[in-house]
């Protein structure tokens, strides 16, 4: 059995960064700057190294995939979520062996895999990427490694769409966005409902009567549709889709090497062995791989599929899950919580608070041009969605030669966004301090900056602490957006575990508790600080 424990995301850099943060805030700022600069250099598009040489020198094939997609591609083992498994994990390992290296998956949002590939976040994308013309416009594709039929799943006993001749018009069919299946659904005149989340949710919606059918690739159908007793997979194949490995258009040598490796793996029967183990061997793939034997050998048990069915075919009751399954999610949630927390702390303390302070002071005490700049900053940043800002920072800036590391991009986007809110908090705080306090400081010989530090700041802080706490907790939750830039934080972990354990309610409670566990201490800390500062005044400052 092949599985992976070394799952890569930006948190590798993250924990290092936070380690330094404990030692010194300055070190973190320096780290950010140095990291940024080195990335600028790395991101310069003038002399791109050959990816095949690069990965051989590194001794590791880094392949992009989304564990959120679920079984049987790449997913956390429902019985031990610290292990990443799937037929593509085994395929990538076999490919890497042929290239003389080891393999390492890199997490990325499925919809963004090709963007991330072109950003050079990994060497290849290997995650049910369908062979289609529009993909070839942005990357090069290897020869197909698997061919899947498109299968329709309906509720058991619902005969309306069961036959091949059925008219789909007026029915709602669920599928994945941008897939071949989606095009088939649209072509047959049905209403299409697509999902950004995991595959399990698509079938849950069907079971709950929110859709009339689900059209998806056979592997998905097998792992999510066929194991649910309330659902039935119909016989007919509505089309076929081939999966290929995506490489960057310029990586011709790498593509040739991967094609050669796939050829060998097919000839040696290794691909077939993997597919049979996962219960995925079919006539379409046999034809594509030039194998005359279209039916799976009875001698090879589909043990991986059986293990899956045993694990999640029937979900144990809640308390049973609490006892037997949730403890195993601790390490993976813990890691995600650490990332969420460290990212939020760096974003808030290193970026949002200092930038917000500068903006607020400029706005309240600065000369006119600085004041206008501060107002413009607040309005522009506050008036545009965080998701847009993060996308520009991570996917847009490389076009200008500035390639940010995922953690840096995430912390910067979150921090700069929240700096606008912080600036307003501090402005409110500063304006709540009577002007006589500044004059009293001046009359004692203080400069304006000394007055800010020793007289106005401490008083403004007391006014600003409650909204600051509020903002930090909000940032903690908004940090879930960084899954866009390949960071596996709490929400992403929940969504991927929910999909692989087929459990959204119980794990939802678990992840909510994790968020509370990291957010509540700060709320309590803030309340204590407020009491400490507030205890010195019997009446509010006016």
């Amino acid at each position, binding site marked *: 059995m092949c599985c992976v424990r070394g799952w890569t995301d930006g948190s590798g850099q993250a924990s290092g960064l936070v380690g330094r943060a404990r030692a010194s805030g300055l070190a973190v700022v320096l780290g950010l700057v140095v990291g940024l600069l080195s990335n600028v250099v790395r991101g310069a598009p003038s002399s791109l190294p050959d990816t095949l040489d690069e990965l051989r020198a590194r001794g590791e094939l880094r392949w992009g995939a989304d564990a959120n997609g679920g079984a049987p591609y790449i997913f956390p083992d429902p019985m031990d979520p610290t292990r990443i498994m799937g037929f593509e994990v085994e395929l990538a390992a076999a490919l890497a062996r042929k290239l003389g290296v080891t393999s390492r998956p890199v997490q990325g949002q499925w919809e963004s895999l090709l963007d991330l590939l072109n950003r050079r976040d990994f060497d290849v994308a290997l995650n049910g990427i369908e062979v289609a013309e529009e993909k070839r416009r942005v990357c090069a594709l290897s020869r197909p490694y698997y061919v899947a039929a498109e299968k329709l799943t309906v509720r058991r006993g619902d005969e309306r769409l069961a036959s091949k001749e059925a008219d789909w018009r007026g029915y709602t069919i669920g599928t994945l966005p941008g897939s071949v299946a989606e095009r088939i659904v649209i072509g047959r005149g049905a209403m299409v409902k697509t999902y950004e989340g995991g595959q399990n949710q698509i079938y849950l919606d069907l079971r709950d009567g929110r859709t009339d059918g689900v059209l998806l690739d056979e592997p998905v159908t097998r792992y999510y549709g066929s194991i649910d007793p309330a659902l039935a997979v119909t016989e007919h194949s509505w089309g076929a889709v081939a999966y290929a490995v995506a490489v960057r258009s310029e990586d011709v040598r790498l593509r040739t090497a991967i094609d050669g490796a796939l050829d060998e793996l097919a000839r040696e029967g290794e691909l077939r062995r993997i597919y049979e183990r996962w219960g995925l061997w079919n006539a379409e793939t046999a034809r594509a791989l030039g194998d005359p034997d279209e039916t799976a050998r009875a001698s090879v048990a589909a043990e991986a599929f059986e293990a899956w069915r045993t694990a999640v075919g029937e979900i144990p009751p809640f308390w049973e899950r609490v006892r037997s399954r949730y403890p195993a999610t601790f390490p993976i949630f813990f890691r995600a919580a650490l990332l969420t927390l460290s990212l939020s702390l760096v974003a808030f303390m290193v970026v949002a608070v200092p930038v917000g302070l500068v903006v607020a002071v400029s706005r309240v005490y600065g000369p006119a041009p600085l004041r206008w700049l501060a107002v413009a900053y607040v309005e522009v940043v506050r008036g545009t969605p965080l998701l847009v800002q993060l996308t520009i920072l991570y996917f847009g800036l490389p076009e200008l030669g500035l390639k940010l590391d995922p953690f840096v991009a995430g912390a910067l986007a979150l921090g700069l966004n929240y700096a606008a809110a912080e600036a307003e908090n501090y402005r409110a705080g500063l304006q709540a301090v*009577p002007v*006589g*306090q500044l*004059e*009293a*400081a*001046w*009359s*004692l*010989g*203080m*400069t*304006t900056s*000394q007055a800010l530090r*020793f*007289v106005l700041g*401490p*008083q403004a802080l*007391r006014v600003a602490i409650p909204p600051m706490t509020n903002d930090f907790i909000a940032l903690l939750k908004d940090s879930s957006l960084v899954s866009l830039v390949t960071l596996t934080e709490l929400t992403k972990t929940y969504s991927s575990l929910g999909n692989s354990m087929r459990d959204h309610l119980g794990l939802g409670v678990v992840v909510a508790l994790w968020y509370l566990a990291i957010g509540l201490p700060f709320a309590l800390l803030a309340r204590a600080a407020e009491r400490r*500062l507030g205890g*010195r*005044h*019997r*009446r509010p*400052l006016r």
Partner: protein
Amino acid sequence: MSVRVDDLSCARGGTRILDAVSFDVAEGGLAAVLGASGAGKTTLLRCLSGLEPFDRGVVDVGGRVVIASEAARRGPSPLRGWVGLVFQTFELFPHLSVLDNCLLAPVRVRGESRAVAEERARAHLHRLGLGTKVDAWPDHLSGGQRQRAAIARALTMQPRVLLYDEPTSALDVSLRNEVIEALRDVREANITQLVVTHDLRLVREATETVVVLDRGRVVEAGPTAAVFGAPQAPATQRLLLA
């Protein structure tokens, strides 16, 4: 250290608030500035302490001369450390204890050691009757105590001149005596004092000279007893009759 104000003029938005104001206060003297509301008393005080720029004229504190162009912007006074100001609303720093209110400027601005500044601050607080209140928060003090704490804070910076803006306006009659006592105490330290006030009793009981302002101009100045005994200017007569 003496205070000399010469030809001081100040306008805001086209309105002349101070018009060629000139007067002197001798070293260690205690002078009052009297005038109806809007006469320009507070603006004069703010010009002297550097909080308000002026357009023309000279302020001379013991030879340290500030001319109009030097005073052109709001901000820390060019006379910092020489001229202290006690605000009408006291403006004690509410996040600091009484003692720390006194120590903040000497330690942070002048870089004095805490011990040295603290000895001085405690002495001032003690003399002003706040010996038991050094660790209290300003909001836990009575009005008279706050006024005296503000005076102690200004004194700890060792100013040569101390200015007061309406020191008794926020206080009831019994507390006014505390302030008068405090003014007398400070005079013993040979610090020149200038009090802006409406409070005729305070002027009569505590000050030696008086300057009367009317619509931005000095209309009468002289020893308090003489001015109160035989007021010359109509504005002074109106004030004393009120």
